[in-house]
């Protein structure tokens, strides 16, 4: 840490070098995907790795946006992510707040139930049966409701609420605030960084979720982006169709550049959310880390 001594400088330099290398290692595959999505297919077969394509081509993007399937699925994903995150936050924060109040009767019993659910889950098939018998199949509720509260997040938020001085809440009460009022006017404004952090956690989770929609939604027009993405990426050439009798001009199944373009389309929107939350996010993580 001391930059004035020689060994300190060497240590710092080594650190920067190491971290820089790590950053490069993680960022290069992503750059390759971006470059590949703008490259021609012949370049992708010929060159093993590049980050600037020789010929710049928008064909892959033209192809994937030639139907409205992708637009539609992005729209669906946005809905699921928005709705899901709102529900998750509402349920997690209200429950966490209630559990953070010491005067709540049966608090420990409820907490134990939550912890129990974190250790033992019902498993895929029982969950499916519950969703099915509740009549949620083929509706977006099946995707957003079953995982509405993450036990782990709930406990983190509860711990954070306990850190807020109880006297503050008491004084609000004396000024005539209801319980809901205390939560809404006093506690939540103080928890913006935490809200931002968990909003990001939940949103990324919903955005990336493909298994739930796959299992619960049978109608292809309800599929979110990730399911469509998976469907396209796993369609590798050679396993579809019998090209023996095929016309040479027949539209070929998606190739490398198209897959890469789709990955970009699937990743960029959720990446764009991050800068807006970044300020709060850093703060929120710190609050989680520095206890007592």
């Amino acid at each position, binding site marked *: 840490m001391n930059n004035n001594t020689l060994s300190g400088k060497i240590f710092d330099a080594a650190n920067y070098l190491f971290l820089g290398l790590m950053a490069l290692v993680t960022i290069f595959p992503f750059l390759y995907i971006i470059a590949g999505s703008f490259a021609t297919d*012949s370049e992708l*077969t*010929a060159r093993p790795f590049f980050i600037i394509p020789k010929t710049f081509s928008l064909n892959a993007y033209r192809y994937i946006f*030639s*139907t*409205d*399937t*992708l637009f539609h*699925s992005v729209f669906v994903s946005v809905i699921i992510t928005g709705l899901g995150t709102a529900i998750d936050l509402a349920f997690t924060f209200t429950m966490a707040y209630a559990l953070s109040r010491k005067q709540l009767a049966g608090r420990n019993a409820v907490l134990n139930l939550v912890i129990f659910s974190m250790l033992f889950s019902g498993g*895929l*098939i029982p969950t*499916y*049966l519950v969703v*099915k018998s509740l009549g949620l199949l083929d509706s977006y509720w099946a995707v957003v409701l079953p995982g509405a509260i993450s036990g782990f997040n709930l406990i983190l938020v509860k711990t954070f609420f306990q850190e807020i001085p109880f006297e503050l809440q008491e004084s609000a009460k004396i000024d005539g605030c209801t319980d809901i009022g205390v939560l809404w006017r006093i506690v939540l404004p103080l928890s913006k960084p935490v809200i931002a952090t968990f909003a990001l956690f939940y949103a990324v989770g919903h955005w990336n979720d493909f*298994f739930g929609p*796959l*299992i619960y939604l*049978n*109608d*292809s*027009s309800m*599929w979110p982006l990730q*399911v*469509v993405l*998976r*469907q*396209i990426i*796993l*369609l*590798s*050439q*050679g*396993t*579809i*169709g*019998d*090209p*023996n*009798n*095929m*016309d*040479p*001009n*027949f*539209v*070929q199944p998606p190739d490398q550049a198209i897959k890469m373009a789709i990955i970009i389309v699937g990743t960029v929107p959720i990446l764009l959310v991050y800068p807006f939350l970044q300020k709060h996010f850093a703060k929120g993580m710190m609050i989680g880390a520095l206890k007592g």
Partner: protein
Amino acid sequence: MLGMVNKGKRAALGLGMAFALTALAGCGGGGEPANKPGSEASGAKTPQPFKISVMIPSFQTTLPKAESSNVWKKIEAYTNTKLDINFVPNSSYSDKMNITLASGSMPMVIEADPKSPSIISAIQSGAFWEIGPYLKDYPNLSKANPTILNNISIEGKIYGIYRGRTLGRNGIVYRKDWLDNVGLQPPKTIDDFYNMLKAFTLDDPDKDGKNDTYGMVVTKFSGPWDNMQVWFGVPNKWGLDANGKLEPAHLFPQYMDALKFFRKLYSEKLVNSDFAVMDSAKWLDPVVNGQAGVIVDVADNAGRLEQKMATSDPKAVIDVTGSVEGPDGALHNLPTSGYSGMFLISKSSVKTEDDLKKVLTFLDKMNDDDVQLLAGYGIEGVNYNIEDGKLVQVADDNPKPEDAFTDLNQLLMFIPEDPTSKMFKPATPLRAKVSQVQKENEKIIVPNPAEPLISKTYMQKGAQLDNIIEDARIKFIVGQIDEAGFQSAVELWKKSGGDEYIKEINEAYAKAQAADGK
């Protein structure tokens, strides 16, 4: 992935000519209801449409829907059914199937791999109808291929209707122009094949003055080795030994001959040395880039390569052949299993024999030429046009929901055969040759006698057992172990359950033989 021959292969798509199209347009072939939906409303003799629920895999992102797809409606009208199709993305099909099996609410017809453990145990617990005895009553289903029926049967009984695929699909695809450059004839024997690879590696087949080519591309997918060892007379997974007992392929003496040949190819650098780790998705790339000249895999790679080479190297000429003569002077070809999944009929949703017959009638009708065309290619004038007597699919950038049909071809079974092969003219001469090669392969295929037999040991430990031999084979090829090392791997295989596996397969075989004799 290229080599995963049958799994997930979508129904054959083809383009071509007129016969069936006129049949469809003229409403021939007994397909009357298809073009006269009106008669159904007025006709008192038409019974109520029978409601059938089906679960099939999907490969598209926009799926046809009952209320909007015209092809769907035409199929319903033709078969007088009301179809409730549940399309499941193929990539997660087995997950969804296991959930469906467990949740107890099964569709009437379900597409499934008859060899997956969960399906075998569901069959053994009586979840599906045994339909073998009924097949003879149906005009199309009765003509099912006996080899494939044997392949899908479980303990000698047939529980489903297979979705047929090309049996003799494998072949050798090579650069004909390179072969001409080095002055060789197309290979007829294994020696010719070896000489071809050698010349492609050493004799500068691309005439650029540089030593930058090699013979054959192999990837981590084991298909090429399996294909080539059959040329040597090694059985397809299981064969009969001198005493009439079934033995696995690696216990036959020819297996070692084949392995030594592979080792020679590897040590002389006639194949790529990174084959054991090379991703099979990149299989075609070295050929497209002009680095390698031979691929031993499904013969229809030829058409795919021809198309790719058209942009990268228009001078390239691709050719294809089925097999080369082995040491015994005969031709052998490794077949595919001949099917891609089968349709099982659930006992819990199809309760009576009467309903079962209705479902079978539907499946039988799906094999009529008219419906096959409809489900495979759509409607003339909308999804395809006839130009110069050839079928040309309409490239539609923005398909309307009423035109969506592509995944309906998952309902096709191609029994007794895929009509498109005789109806349509292939797009290029090479593709015609591929079809011909695959047709001729059917005469020289080596069936696997143990395909329908079930071994409990294999269901439990099959993956480990296969791995032992697979590892030893690769190690032998790259020279990490010698013959004794391979033998000790075989011993390990036997001890790890191989002995029981052999015993169980032979017991099942004896039982099946006895049942046949009756």
